[in-house]
């Protein structure tokens, strides 16, 4: 038996070289080999033969490792929504902490007027929804890089992107309406002043609407969809690079990145195919 242990240890080392960092998988394959040896020895086979047969039946470690790589993804790719909403939640916590630190809420309270509060809260939430859409876009692009994602994943991406586009466009619309109503109350006849904050908000509002529009089923032509997506990304880009929206009140740079990612993803996300691809499943067949 010590001889068998030496053989198993040598085999495990060869396996570990292919499965770096996957100790659980190596343990599991080793358990399989030991199960085989145990079963065959009970049937009268010699330990050496049972070991040789078990190793041969398990197959080439490199081929198994390649198959694992094809089907397995890191945890952040398995639970992308946890990562996305976790990041957005952290961002919200930082903004809230900074605002408390600066006494911002106190000043907002002083500036008063329900419209101003609604304006701040809805616009901020709209920005966060768009940033989350950008993260979903990054996930969509990354998960589709060099492979066709499983139908389940595509479905989750479409669903989340649609929800976030609805959320950001509704929130940005409400925010803009509340902001303009507030401005009209404070500065009669001046609801719009071409200030950087207003231009920035307006570009994000248009981009949000376009993000929603390209996902609606009324747009059937993929060229129209891609054109609208490009327009959505370009609008915020113009606001950013022309300097028209340069103000601390609008995180225009981040919003532009989010817009580019989300619009690129919706342009890439095709309609669900009728047949799930066979490639997405692991292939067990012997060579």
């Amino acid at each position, binding site marked *: 038996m010590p001889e068998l242990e030496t053989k198993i240890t040598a085999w495990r080392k060869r396996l570990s070289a292919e499965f770096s960092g996957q100790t659980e*998988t190596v343990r599991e394959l080793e358990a399989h080999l030991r*199960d085989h040896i145990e*079963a065959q020895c009970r049937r009268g086979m010699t330990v050496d033969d049972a070991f040789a047969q078990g190793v041969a039946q398990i197959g080439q470690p490199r*081929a198994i490792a390649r198959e694992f790589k094809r089907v397995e993804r890191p945890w952040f790719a398995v639970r992308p929504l946890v990562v996305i909403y976790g990041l957005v939640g952290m961002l919200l916590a930082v903004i809230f902490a900074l605002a408390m630190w600066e006494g911002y809420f106190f000043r907002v309270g002083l500036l008063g007027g329900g419209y101003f509060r609604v304006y701040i809260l809805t616009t901020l939430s709209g920005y966060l929804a768009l940033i989350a859409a950008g993260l979903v876009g990054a996930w969509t692009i990354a998960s589709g890089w060099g492979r066709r994602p499983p139908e389940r994943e595509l479905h989750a991406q479409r669903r989340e992107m649609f929800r976030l586009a609805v959320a950001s466009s509704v929130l940005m619309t409400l925010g803009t309406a509340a902001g303009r109503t507030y401005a009209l109350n404070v500065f009669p006849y001046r609801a719009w002043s071409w200030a950087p904050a207003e231009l920035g908000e307006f570009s994000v509002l248009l981009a949000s609407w376009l993000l929603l529009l390209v996902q609606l089923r009324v747009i059937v032509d993929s060229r129209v969809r891609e054109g609208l997506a490009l327009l959505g990304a370009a609008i915020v880009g113009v606001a950013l690079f022309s300097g028209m929206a340069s103000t601390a009140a609008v995180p225009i740079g981040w919003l532009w990145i989010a817009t580019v990612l989300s619009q690129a993803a919706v342009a890439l996300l095709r309609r669900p195919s009728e047949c799930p691809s*066979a490639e997405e499943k692991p292939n067990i067949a012997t060579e």
Partner: protein
Amino acid sequence: MKLAKDLVAASTVPLVLAILADGESYGYAIIQRVRELSDGEIEWTDGMLYPVLHWLEENGQVKARWGESDTGRKRRYYSLKAEGKKYLADHKAQWLAVHETLRRAWRIKHAGA
């Protein structure tokens, strides 16, 4: 008779899920059960079962836990989750439909021949 590679690949997931529907099991036992059920017609490369099991786990169709064999060795046991049961039911209906269609087509051919 050696089954075509595509056919083996397509039947893997429903077969693994069907075996797990009978109760919790582990890699080696699943492979033995497949050999037994197919009278040795379905040949798998044993190691290739594990990417399938991990893929099913990742997709929420099965769950896994480390347990012990009768002799006290560690083994990873798999069991079906609700989503796996649903997937199996859907696929069972599809496979039966294919089976029935082929059966009828061949019967008609034989009758006509």
